[in-house]
């Protein structure tokens, strides 16, 4: 779905200063239909990377392909943007209309989709995010989680093949976070949409197919959640916490217990501890 080759990016530097690389040679191949979580401390390059996936930024070195289309090819820009949708952190900055359905219709209207087709897409998109009851509501009166689901519906109405959520859950409370996370998983499962979820919440990575950890503009770790989270020391060195499940298992191992480190979920962790107790 997405491919990068020695991707480099430097933001334009102030006069007299040498530009610093925000991305320093990233090679990634993200499979169609996968659910990928991207972690990394602030400034590690996550957003810069994400913006390359729908050609908001173009590489200053290396290449990015979206379904084989080179993002540097201006003629393909619309095709690329249609395929990869983005949802950002602040729910209030993403709302453009005074009524939910108009908000969702905004992007397809801009793409010139015919009205009856828009109607179908809007209804379907709102149903997918579980917001069909709010068609005629005013978006600014919704909760944060609901606003983010409307923003996701707006992206889905473009019928993209990939959705990038850049810290879309960061400003939400646990309920709102759960709403957005389960919506993303449902889109992935039921519609086969590739999901790239950038987050600070380690537990949102539990059910991902793949976890990528960014550090200083580079991919520092890449693997299944189990593979990544069991590297406790390395994660800590990168300024990240590990889930409490793994931390507990790690501490028990330090005390000589024979428990695996990759029991990520609460249930798996409790099973592992109970087994070691016998």
């Amino acid at each position, binding site marked *: 779905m997405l491919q990068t080759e020695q991707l480099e990016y430097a933001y334009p530097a102030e006069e007299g200063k040498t530009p610093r690389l925000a991305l320093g040679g990233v090679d990634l191949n993200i499979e169609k239909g996968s659910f990928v979580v991207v972690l990394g401390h602030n400034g590690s390059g996550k957003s810069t990377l994400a913006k390359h996936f729908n050609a908001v930024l173009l590489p200053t070195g290396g290449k990015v392909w979206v379904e084989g289309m080179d993002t540097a090819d201006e003629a393909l820009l619309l095709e690329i943007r249609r395929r990869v949708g983005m949802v950002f*952190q602040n729910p209030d900055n993403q709302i453009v209309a005074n009524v939910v359905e108009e908000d969702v219709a905004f992007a397809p209207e801009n793409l010139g989709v015919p009205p009856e087709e828009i109607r179908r897409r809007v209804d379907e998109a709102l149903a997918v995010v579980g917001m069909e009851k709010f068609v005629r509501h005013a978006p600014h009166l919704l909760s944060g989680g609901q606003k983010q689901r409307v923003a996701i519906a707006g992206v889905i109405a473009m019928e993209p093949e990939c959705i990038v959520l850049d810290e879309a859950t*960061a400003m939400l409370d646990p309920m709102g976070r759960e709403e957005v996370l389960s919506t993303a998983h449902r889109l992935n499962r039921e519609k086969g949409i590739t999901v790239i979820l950038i987050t600070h919440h380690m537990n949102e990575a539990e059910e991902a197919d793949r976890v990528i950890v960014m550090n200083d503009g580079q991919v520092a770790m890449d693997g299944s959640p189990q593979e990544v989270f069991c590297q406790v020391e390395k994660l800590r060195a990168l300024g990240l916490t590990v889930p409490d499940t793994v931390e507990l298992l790690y501490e028990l191992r330090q005390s000589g217990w024979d428990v695996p480190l990759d029991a990520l979920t*609460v249930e798996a962790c409790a099973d592992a501890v109970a087994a070691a107790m016998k």
Partner: protein
Amino acid sequence: MEPILRVEHLTHTYGSGTPFERSAVQDLSFQVEAGEFLGVIGHTGSGKSTLIQHLNGLLRPTSGHIYLDGTDIWAKPKEIRQVRFQVGLVFQYPEYQLFEETVYRDIAFGPTNMGLTPEQVDRAVREAAAFAGLSEELLDKSPFELSGGQKRRVAIAGVIAMDPKVLILDEPTAGLDPEGRERLLANIRAYHQAKGNTILLVSHSMDEIARNVDRILVLKDAHVLMSGTPREVFARAEELESAGLDVPQVTRIARALRDRGLAIDPAVYTTEELTAALLALKKGGSAVC
């Protein structure tokens, strides 16, 4: 001893007399002891921000009273400014409220307004910057050159510089990464230890609250759902979950272990505690109850 803050039957109704009338807090009563580190938690819309804006007189109760050191803060409405100096409030996303040309002047704004001498202001600014984890060389920069996390620290320093008796922080870690969150909380803890003053930390993250506070006040739909030590509160995990709140992952592991027959206190909430409990259980040999 008189508690530093006493809230009695506080109700606040927005939009009174309009079709949108609603009570954001309703008949709240609780108190905060001097020197206490209190966590205030609740789902979005539960009334946290509305509540704390009453504690320094930014909002006036529709009914009920707030006593600071035993005195009703609205006894003399003209002196409400004095209350704002004693009860310092850091808003949610305060980085959007910086307005001065330099970090130094932004932090100096409060103490200058309080009528301190320039020397006193200077001392207050430098001390507050250090507590907030800002290095000296940042003081001459424009706030707009700083990162989001640094800006937030500037806003916090601006309130600390007034040396308030009570410091209230409304979701200070929202949107920060885990390391940034932990560093900021460490600064707040260190400030609390050095000054011994009262702190109210508003959050919707139970994990964060659990690790930092002496006592937790849980709000749900404009009411107090419960209050107590973290241990007392987490012992009621099901109620918390039904109020839309996270129970710390460690508490959930402890509960899952109990379900599997292990005699573990279901209210533990740190990995250290749970590790210790498990090691003790295994050593004792009576693993299964």
